C-alpha cells in the first residue's frame, strides 16, 4: 500500500514538472517556437474532425442554442419558441445548401459597401472556442488560402473580429466580444472617437469619449480606422444602448450592443487587404 501511494506521488511530481516546462516554454518562446508549431498541428488535426462533427450535429446545435435563451423574458421565450418552430419547419423543407446560398448572396451585397472593398475571402465558421473564458471561432480557410494573422473578419452585419493564428487550412478568429479584443471606434453622428472593448456576453464598452459629446441611444458605432491599420474605417460594430459618465467626469462611456449575432456565425468574409501595417513600410514612407 505504501509503495503504491508513493508511485502515485511520483506520477504527480513528473506531471507537475511537465506542466512547469510547458508554461515556461510558452512564456519564453519566440513566434514559430515548438509550442506554437504544436498548436498549429493541433488545429490542423482537430479542425477537420470538428468540421465533420459540426456538420452532423448542426441541427442539434441550432436547437441547443435556442435552449440557451430560457433565462430571458417570457415574451421573448414565446417568440423564440415560435421562431424555433418556424425555423425547424423551414429547415426540414429547405436543404442546407439553399441556406448557405442565401448567406453568400448577402455577402455579395456586403461587397458593395465601402468597408468591404478590396479582396475578400469567404470562409465558414466550423467550430467555437473550447472554453468559457475566450471567445474565438475556427474558420475553414488558412495560410494556403492567403489568410494571415491580424486580418479583419466581417459578416453581412458588421465586424466579427480579427485573425489570431493561422494553420495551413484553418485559422482562428478572436471575436469582437472577447475581453482581450479592443478596437478604435467612432460615433457616426458626432464623429467622436474612443476605444471599444469586448466583455463576453455583456454589451461592449465604448470608452474615453469626450464628456461634452451628445450621444443618442441607438446611434451606430463604426471602426475608426486608427487602430494601427488593423481594421479599415467604417465597419459597423454595434448600436449605443446606454451612456454613463466616468466617476471623474473626464470622459463618457457608452455601452454598445453588437450588430453581429455571435451565437449564429456561419459564413464570414476575411478582408485580405487588412491587417497590421508593417513597421518597415512605415519607416520607408517617412524616410
Amino acid at each position, binding site marked *: *500500500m505504501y509503495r503504491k501511494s508513493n508511485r502515485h506521488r511520483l506520477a504527480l511530481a513528473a506531471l507537475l514538472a511537465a506542466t512547469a516546462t510547458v508554461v515556461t516554454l510558452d512564456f519564453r518562446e519566440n513566434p514559430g517556437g515548438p509550442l506554437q508549431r504544436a498548436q498549429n498541428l493541433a488545429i490542423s488535426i482537430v479542425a477537420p474532425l470538428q468540421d465533420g462533427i459540426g456538420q452532423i450535429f448542426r441541427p442539434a446545435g441550432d436547437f441547443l442554442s435556442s435552449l440557451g435563451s430560457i433565462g430571458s423574458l417570457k415574451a421573448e421565450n414565446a417568440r423564440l419558441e415560435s421562431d424555433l418552430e418556424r425555423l425547424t419547419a423551414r429547415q426540414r423543407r429547405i436543404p442546407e445548401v439553399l441556406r448557405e446560398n442565401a448567406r453568400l448572396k448577402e455577402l455579395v451585397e456586403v461587397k458593395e459597401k465601402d468597408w468591404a472593398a478590396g479582396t475578400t475571402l469567404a470562409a465558414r465558421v466550423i467550430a467555437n472556442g473550447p472554453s468559457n473564458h475566450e471567445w474565438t471561432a475556427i474558420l475553414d480557410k488558412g495560410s494556403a488560402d492567403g489568410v494571415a494573422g491580424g486580418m479583419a473578419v466581417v459578416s453581412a452585419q458588421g465586424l466579427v473580429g480579427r485573425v489570431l493564428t493561422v494553420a495551413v487550412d484553418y485559422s482562428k478568429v478572436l471575436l469582437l466580444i472577447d475581453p482581450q479584443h479592443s478596437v478604435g471606434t467612432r460615433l457616426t453622428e458626432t464623429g467622436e472617437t474612443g476605444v471599444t472593448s469586448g466583455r463576453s456576453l455583456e454589451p461592449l464598452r465604448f470608452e474615453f469619449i469626450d464628456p461634452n459629446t451628445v450621444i443618442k441611444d441607438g446611434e451606430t458605432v463604426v471602426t475608426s480606422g486608427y487602430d494601427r491599420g488593423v481594421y479599415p474605417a467604417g465597419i459597423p460594430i454595434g448600436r449605443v444602448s446606454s451612456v454613463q459618465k466616468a466617476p471623474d467626469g473626464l470622459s463618457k462611456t457608452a455601452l454598445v450592443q453588437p450588430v453581429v449575432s455571435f451565437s449564429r456565425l456561419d459564413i464570414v468574409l476575411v478582408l485580405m487587404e487588412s491587417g497590421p501595417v508593417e513597421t518597415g513600410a512605415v519607416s520607408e514612407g517617412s524616410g
Partner: protein
Amino acid sequence: MRRVLVFGLTLLTAVLLQTTVFAQLKILGVSPDLLLAVVISFALLEGPSAGAVLGFAGGFLRDLLLDAPAGLTGLSYLVIGYVVGSIRPYIGSNTVFVPAAGVFLGSIAATGLYEVLQGLFGQRPAPVSRAISVVLLTGVYNTILVPFIYPPVRRIAAFYKPEKVYQW
C-alpha cells in the same frame, strides 16, 4: 497499450463535442465542461495516477486549442484528477451520489483553480461576477451531465481494465 489509446480517444471525443455541440449550449453565457466531467469520472474510477495523467493529457490538448498561456488547463485538471482520485477510496458509499458530488465539487474546484491561475498570469481579466458564475454554473451543468457521462466512462474503464497485479 490499447487502454491508453481508448482513453485518449475518449478525451479527444470529449474535446470535439465540447467545441462543436456544447459550444452552442450556452445557458446564461456558460456551457458545460464536458472534458472536465470525463476527467473526473476517470479519476473516480481509476485512481489518482490515472486521474492526473488523463487530466494533464486532456487539459494540454485543450490548451493547444486555446489562446491562453499553454499549460494552465493541464495543470488545473491534473491537480483535480489527482485529488479526486485520492479521495475516492475514503468514501464508502457506492451510490449515484458519489459521481454526482465528485463531478460537482471537482468541476467547481478545477474551474476555480483555472480562474485563479489565469488571474496570476495576468490573462483576460474577467469581472469577478462573471468568474463566479462560470465556476458555479460549470459545476451545476457538469453535474446534470453525470448520468450521460459517468456510465459510458465506467463501461470503457471496466472493459479496458489492466490485468490485476498485486504489489504488496
